């Protein structure tokens, strides 16, 4: 990854687009809304497209990939260098003909149509969440491919445009993805378009050294995108950028999948539980009657060892 010369500002940006129909749909019929008020999907999309174009403007070598994060599936929407990659000249021409906007919208439509199978009005627990872990994993796979490619390769980074709240069931998967990203030095940026902060993405940005941001006014989304998230990794060394304001390091317990700030951990497999158990549901280890309650003792013992 160090094969690049320092002044290189060519970027490979993978944008994870919040495309959860429940989230956006929830907008229209004001019922239990999770998304920001009066900010529709189309507006959102506009901003993003502007953003994509401006990335292209900045450097013709910039590569952009857009992956939709849906409630029931994830899909590639756009790949700026798909044209060059596909050997077939004809398809290349066709793809060239359409502009970025057309390509994306078109792809997005059939994605949405698939998603829409779920009745939006009675969103189940499941599709209140988007499959962040899925799109993250895909993004990372894609980036690995870039990194494998001929060097010098563009500097990869991931931008999550997240609206829906964190999905505790995805906790482990997301974490795995984060660590993998960290290992291959891929920063994960996060721009929250929903109402809730995302502990997952806070951790992700914190660990991978990306930027975390929740625009107070989503109407001006492009503002933030162009001011903050357009900055390539090289320029980040020189520009003032928003600093992390605290990270939520709470875990989510295995038993009820709810975030906790204090809990019990199995000494064999480190599974987290919100309350004491006899046996570990993950590794079915049988716990010795724990002498836990007396932390002072534990501390004392620790000191003795050290």
């Amino acid at each position: 990854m160090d094969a690049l010369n320092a002044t290189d500002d060519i970027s490979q940006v993978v944008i994870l687009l919040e495309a959860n129909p429940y989230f956006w749909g929830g907008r229209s019929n004001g019922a239990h809304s999770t998304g920001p008020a009066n900010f529709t999907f189309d507006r959102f999309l506009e901003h993003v497209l502007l953003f994509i174009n401006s990335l292209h403007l900045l450097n013709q070598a910039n590569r952009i990939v857009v992956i939709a994060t849906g409630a029931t599936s994830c899909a590639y929407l756009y790949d700026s260098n798909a044209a060059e990659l596909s050997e077939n000249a004809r398809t290349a021409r066709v793809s060239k003909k359409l502009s970025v906007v057309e390509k994306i919208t078109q792809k997005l439509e059939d994605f949405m149509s698939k998603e829409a199978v779920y009745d939006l009005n009675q969103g189940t627990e499941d599709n209140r969440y988007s499959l962040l872990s899925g799109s993250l994993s895909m993004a990372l796979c894609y980036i690995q491919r870039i990194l494998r490619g001929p060097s010098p390769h563009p500097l990869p980074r991931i931008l999550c445009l997240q609206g829906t709240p964190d999905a505790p069931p995805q906790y482990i998967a997301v974490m795995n993805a984060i660590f993998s990203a960290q290992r291959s030095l891929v920063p994960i940026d996060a721009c929250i378009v929903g109402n809730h902060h995302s502990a997952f993405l806070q951790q992700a940005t914190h660990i991978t050294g990306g930027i975390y941001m929740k625009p107070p006014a989503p109407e001006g989304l492009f503002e933030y995108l162009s001011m903050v998230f357009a900055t390539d990794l090289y320029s980040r060394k020189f520009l003032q950028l928003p600093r992390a304001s605290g990270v939520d390091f709470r875990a989510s317990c295995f038993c009820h999948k709810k975030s906790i700030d204090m809990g019990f951990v199995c000494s064999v497999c480190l599974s987290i539980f919100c309350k004491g158990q006899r046996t570990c549901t993950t590794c079915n280890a049988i716990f010795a009657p724990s002498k836990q309650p007396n932390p002072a003792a534990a501390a004392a013992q620790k000191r003795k060892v050290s």
Partner: protein
Amino acid sequence: MGPEEDGTNPMDEDGDGDAEEQGRDMEAWEKAYAEDRSWEALTEDASGLLLAVDVTQQQRQHRRRFAASKGPRIQRGIIRYVFVVCDFSRAAAEADFKPSRMGAVANCVEAFVREFFDQNPLSHLGLITIRNGVARRLTDLSGSPEAHIRALRANLECSGDASIQNAIDLARGYLSSIPSYGHREVVILYSALSTCDPGDIMDSIAECKKANIRCSVVGLSAEIYICKTLCDKTGGVYSVAISESHLKELVLEHAPPPPAVAESAVASLVRMGFPQRGAEGTVALCACHREVKLGGGYTCPRCKARVCELPTECHICGLTLVSSPHLARSYHHLFPVPGFEEVSVQLQSMGKFDVLRLCYGCQQELPTAGSKAIAGVRLECPRCKQHFCFDCDVYIHESLHNCPGCESLVK
């Protein structure tokens, strides 16, 4: 894979195998090529043009090796208390490893220490050196990588004899007092070829066995009988390094948590806190240094005290404080991604390929029966039935530990 491959593959592996054999007793400068003896696979066509090698076979082999290395899913001892013993006896001065055996060991240990804490967040590690037949504890069992590395760097000289017995006795002394749920281990990096012990080493070995201490040895020069016995008796691993790189491999093999032996440690529930990280630039009094600190520290969820780094124990209420990422690092051991199966390109119905023309992970084109353009294997996730390319398979199983396909389905 198709039946026809089965016939051929073992052969390939043989060839590959003794290719490496030869690689071993090559001159140093040849070794660079020993790993990939690609030219052997090269073939010329009629016009004397060189043809590319058969990727598919190579990929299959790689997958087989990986599969072999990866055993069935097992309980692992994740909370470990490990002493790393560096033999800095006379023999460590030998320069057959560059810069010297000692140097090589130091480098590996450094890498190991980092990797270790990366993979075993809640574990503790300590350093012991052997010099002049005496074992000395460099660092106490503790959680901070830097301290160990500093201590090691500061202690690089070697002389005198080596004594395994002294080393393991010392280690046993410290390991005996750790909490019951911890897994006790000793990893010895041994340069010497003999051990000058004060007493009968067999007794010490028996003692270790009794104390459930798993002793592993990485030798730098040759197989030594006593080390072999030590490892066999205590359930450790004995390996001998061929080259610097191999040495690193072998040492790092000890980084992932070892399979947990039932009796070696009793499971128990440990109460832990997952503190929040304070915003940058905020000022607070930190409990550990008893002084005002600027910048994001962590706050104990129980007593709201401020600590500077994780993992640690709250100095006020003694609660074990970790950040959930620490724990999460080792979760992939618990929920491994199912191995992908190869779908024979020939047998596949062409119908399906139109759908799955691209790798689900990275959009790379997948090999199809028709086009010979893309060589390689096509793999399928048994759970989500998505198809992947070879590279993604490797990445997914060795680094990512998520199957994109499964992740992007509602469970």
